[in-house]
Structure formats: C-alpha cells, structure tokens
C-alpha cells in the first residue's frame, strides 16, 4: 500500500470521493480500491503469505481444540492448570493494552490535547488487546459457553477472578463506547459521536477505576498461590500494585511499539498531523513510561525487602530475576531517560521494545516459568503454541484491518 500511495493513490479520508459522489460502505471496506486492485494488493503483501501459512496449520488445530477438548492441545497438567493461553493471552495481553485508559486519562482528563493525534491508537490498542484476551480466555476455559455464569448464573463475589470478569466485561464496553466516535465518523453516524462526547469524562474515569482494579487483580490472582510462585515474583502485599504499575509502562511502551510499526508499515494510512507529531509524542510517552518504570523498580525492591527475600537473589532463580529486571526494567529506564534528554525518538522506540519484552517476561515468569518452582518446569504442548500464534495472528489481522479503514491514524474530513 505504501508503494501504491507513492504512485498517487489517495486513501479514503471522507465520505466523498474526489468527484463529489459518496463512497459506499463496500467501497470503504475495500479501502477505495476496485475489487481487482484490492485482491492484487492482498496477494502482493508477503506478510499475508505468512498469515496464510499460520492459518493453514493453526485453524484445524484451533477447531480440534473444541472437538477433542483441551487434553488434545495441552499436556493436561493438573500441576500447571494455566498454560500459554492465559500466560500469554491474558496476563501479557491485558497489561500491554493498558494504553487505552492511559491515553483517555491523558487527553480527556488532564486535558493534554497535544496527545490527541495518538489517542485513538491508544484506545484501539486497548480495545483489541482486551477483546483478544477474552478470545484467549475462551480458548482456555473448559466450558467457554458458560462465560456469563459469573455474571448472571452463579455469583462468587468474594473471588478475585469475579472482579476481573466483571471489570474486564465492563471495561470492554467502556472501550467500545470510547471508540464509537471513530466508527461513527467512518460510517457517518454523527449522533452517536455526539452522545459519546457527552459522557466521555464518565467513561474515562470509569476506565481508570476499572483498569486500576483489574490490572491489579490479575496480579492478586497469584496471591492465591503463595507457595507456588517463586518468592522473588510473589508479594502478598504489593503484587496488585506491581501488576498495575507495570501495566502503566507496558501500555505506554506498547503504544510506542505499535505507532512505530504503523509508521513503518502503514505509512500510507497516516496523515500529516499524525506523522509530524509522532516523534514528539513518542518522547512524551517515553517520559511517562520512565516514571512508571522507576516506580515499578522501587516497589519491586520494597517487595523483596518487605518479605526479606534477599537470600534468593544469590540463587539461579535470582540470576533469572536480575536478568528480567536489568533487561526489562533498568535498561529501558536508562534508554528512555537518555532518549528524552537528547530528544531521540528512535532511541525511545528501542527502549519501548525492551520494556514490552520485560513486561511479557515478567508475566510469563509469574504465571508459568517460576510457577511451581519447587516442582518441575512445564513446557507447553506444541499445539498449544500453534493456537497462541494463530489467535495472536488474528489479533494482528483485525488490528491492521481497523487501522486501514477507520480514522485512527488520520483525521476524518467532515466535508458535508
């Protein structure tokens, strides 16, 4: 598409074509290309071939999971009841999607309108991340058709997971509402947009509360397993706070990563405002992320001191912990600080990749790698890995499809 644009192709930015006639929905879905051109573009993209390869292997296995049961795709472990589906799909996806509430807070609550051009990307990153976290959950649940049981059938309100379920569900609707304006512009439903505008502050405040609690709750889920999670990754008192603060830097860093990817691979879809502001905003996000990183580092150290876990640092697990902290927290912190000081957006982008890696490593360490540290290490079944890759690929496909169409990376021209 980038090459098409350099040849003079103009993507859809308003309801009217150059000649003044209106785009039909079908034409909008086809990105303003003719069906033939659209197919040609799809076939030319090498990334699509990778996706098709993933689906060729992954879709039958995903279907198989629902026909033959979890026992067919996992090792059916009683000792490791949670595998990659939740380890990656829930515990990594959700913090990386904290960008939604972060951007909502920045722009709508603190009135930082200079972040407006990246706000929608932040919201979309949040919405899709949560949506696919629920998808991963549906793959993992023994009886996915009972997903609504904790809401309406049999309530266990004293459980942490009850809070996660309710808050993720509520927050998901919040995020849908927050993105209604983008959809309304694209589909030409001005009333919907105006309605959301009226309640946007309420939505944002609700988003902060729900996010604080459910990001924290994901950490608190592990406080049920005091003997199973390694002490360096466990803190009865601070687990929720560690998960919340790390979600803050992870959400911001993920936004930098995604915006970098759009700048590289979807430049055709970005408008001037977005591209011109991106470096400056990247540094702004980096600044916020570095503040969260230092907070996180301090609370991690306090956690160790509080439980007097120092002696574990000298063990093999301690070395692994130090690796996570140095590469995933301290290094990005230093890089972000240098980047902000020297106004070097590229450096900040590198730091963002590291921070996202650090977050993912932390969550996988807590949920899988250090879990049952006194027993043995569970290595996920290959089919489990394939399903994770397949669902994540779908996440990317949907993400890309929305970015290519709705006014996320560009501003809609209301020329009616």
């Amino acid at each position, binding site marked *: 598409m980038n090459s098409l644009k350099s040849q003079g192709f103009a993507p859809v930015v308003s309801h009217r074509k150059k000649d003044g006639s209106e785009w039909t929905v079908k034409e909008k879905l086809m990105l303003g290309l003719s069906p033939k051109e659209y197919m040609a573009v799809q076939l030319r993209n090498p990334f699509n071939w990778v996706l098709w390869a993933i689906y060729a292997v992954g879709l039958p296995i995903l279907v198989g999971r629902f*026909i033959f*049961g*979890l*026992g067919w795709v996992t090792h059916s472990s009683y000792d490791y009841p949670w595998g990659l589906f939740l380890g990656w799909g829930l515990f990594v996806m959700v913090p990386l999607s904290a960008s939604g509430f972060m951007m909502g807070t920045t722009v709508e609550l*603190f009135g930082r309108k200079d972040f407006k051009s990246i706000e929608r990307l932040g919201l979309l990153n949040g919405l899709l991340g949560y949506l696919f976290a629920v998808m991963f959950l549906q793959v993992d649940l023994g009886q996915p058709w009972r997903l609504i049981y904790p809401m309406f059938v*049999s309530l266990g309100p004293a459980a942490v*997971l009850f809070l996660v379920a309710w808050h993720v569900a509520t927050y998901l609707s919040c995020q849908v509402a927050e993105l209604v304006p983008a959809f309304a512009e694209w589909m030409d439903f001005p009333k919907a947009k105006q309605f959301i505008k009226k309640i946007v502050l*309420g939505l944002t*405040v609700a988003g902060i509360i729900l996010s604080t609690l459910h990001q924290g709750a994901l950490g608190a889920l592990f406080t049920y397993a*005091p003997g199973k999670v390694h002490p360096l990754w466990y803190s009865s008192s601070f687990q929720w706070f560690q998960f919340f603060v790390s979600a803050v830097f992870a959400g911001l860093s993920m936004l930098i990563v995604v915006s970098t990817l759009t700048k590289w691979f979807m430049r055709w879809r970005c408008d001037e405002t977005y591209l011109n502001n991106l470096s400056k905003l990247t540094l702004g996000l980096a600044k916020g992320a570095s503040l969260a990183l230092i907070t996180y580092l301090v609370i991690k150290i306090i956690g160790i001191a509080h439980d007097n876990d120092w002696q574990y640092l000298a063990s093999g697990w301690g070395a692994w912990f130090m690796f996570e902290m140095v590469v995933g927290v301290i290094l990005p912190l230093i890089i972000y600080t240098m980047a902000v000081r020297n106004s070097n957006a590229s450096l900040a982008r590198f730091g963002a990749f590291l921070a996202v890696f650090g977050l993912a490593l932390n969550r996988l360490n807590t949920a899988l790698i250090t879990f049952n540290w006194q027993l043995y290490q569970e290595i996920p079944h290959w089919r489990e890995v394939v399903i994770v890759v397949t669902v994540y690929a779908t996440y990317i496909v949907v993400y890309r499809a929305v970015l290519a169409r709705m006014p996320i990376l560009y501003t809609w021209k209301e020329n009616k």
Partner: protein
Amino acid sequence: MKKLHRRSFLKGGLAGGAAIAAVGTSKHAEAAGSFGGYPDSMGVLVDLTKCVGCRTCEAACNKEQGLPAPDKSFDDPSVFEEKREGGLPRRTTEKAYTVVQKYDVPGREHPLFRKVQCNHCNEPACLTSCFVNAYKKTPEGAVMYDPTVCVGCRTCMIACPFYIPAYSYSSAINPVVKKCIMCYDTRLKFGKPPACVEACPQEVMTFGKRKDLLKLAHQRISEKPEAYVDHVYGENEVGGTAWMYLSDVPFDKIGYDTHLGDQPIISYVKEFLAIVPMVLTIWPALFTGFHLLSNRKDALKNEDNKS
C-alpha cells in the same frame, strides 16, 4: 472538551459512576473475617505409622465414586514406582480421588506409605478463589464441588496448596474438576465414614468429629512420644483441615509442605481485597478533581469570554 459544561460533566460522571456501582458495591463483604470451621464438623485422622500400602482405600474410592477402571489393578504395587513429571510421586487425577504414595525413608525399617486425597480445609482456597461459587463447605466438613456451574477457569487448582483438584481435560463437552468429596452424597451426609476409611483393614484412618480427633491425636502422641513426631499435620495448616495426619517421620521428609503457614490462603489475598472499595470510592472524586484542576485555566477563560 471545551464544550463540556457542568451539567454534561455531571451526566458523564453519573453514567460512569453507575457503571461502576453496578459492579462494585458490597463486592467483598463476604471476604471479611476469618472462619475457623463448623463446630461439629467431621474429620479423619490418618495415622501414617499404621499404613501398609495395600491400596484398599483406592479400590474403595474407585467403587464408591463410580470412577473409571484403573490402568493397573489395585493390588499392583508397581504403581508406587511410577513417577510423574519432575520425578514426583503419583498424585490425584481425574480417575483417582485418592492415591497412596510410597516413601523410602533412610533409617526407617519399612517404607512409609502416605495416602493423599482432598484435605477438606476449614477455609478452602478452592472455595474462596472460585468466581462462580461452585464450592461449598458443608457443616459436616466436606468441601463439595458443583459441576453444573463450573466454567472451567481452573483457579481452584492454582489456589489449592495441596495440589488436589484434577480436571477432566479429556472431555470436550463437559470437562469438570474431579476431587474427593469425602463421600458426602452417599455416606457422610448420613453420618457414615468415607468409603476409604471403612475399607481400610489397618484402621489407619479414624473418623469422628474434628475436635475429638484432635484430642485423640495429641493423646496418641503423648502416650507414645517415641513413635510419633510431635505435630498433627492439618491441625493448623492453612487454617486447619478436616483430614489430619500423624507420622513417625518428619512431615517435610515425606512430601508434606511444611511451609504453608497457619493462615488460610484467602488471608494472602485480603490485602488486595481491602483496596478494592477504596479505589471504587476514592478514585472518582480524585480523578474528576484532577480534571477540574488541570482544566482550570480553560474554565476561567470560558467564564471571562462569557462575561
């Protein structure tokens, strides 16, 4: 944002507030306080010094609970040599609610046999972690599981400090948690001991009121201090369990986790549960306050423009 008047701001705030109130109020009232167990609940005292590893309890459990046929006969001692991942001894599975493990203890003349099944905690971690209330602690002492509401999140398996609940992963349509229910439906409810207790030829297990069993356990230790370690496992572990154990070998040498502490598992979660109502009540005011402060200049400008 400029157009945001006080009224629409209030409306938005109310909408958000209502959304949260719907999910937030009185959420954790049930988590407060601690529960020491029903006063007359039943229990089982397992005297490990008496077990000879005949596995009759396993056979009785299999029959009573209508479990699928075992992979090996119940009189086949080769199962004791079976190891699961990590060289660990056999554990409860979806096909076996109780298993006997064998420990060769250095210095002990004969191997020690240990029966494993649900310990039926006074304040069970599985129960407190379940978001659909599938677990119930009956006044008789059994921890029951309701497969008809279970969603299959398996948090109970994460939470159980004893690694007891198993899951029927093999079923695609109706996978459920599988664990010992102390024969509640068929026996305990009618005042009868669990099938394994009744079947045991050695009377390794004593069935009775938990409080009586505790006295008995300590009586046995004081009568034969040389025959037992001075600890009743399960008296206080994770808040106390209905099944308790006597041993002549230190418990940490025969696979028991002696670092579980005396607090029920839920007590480790309470610090988080306590912040929930605080966030729910303080955050809305705090952040709308931030909003008003950070937009103060704009608001003042608007006032000036109007006047």
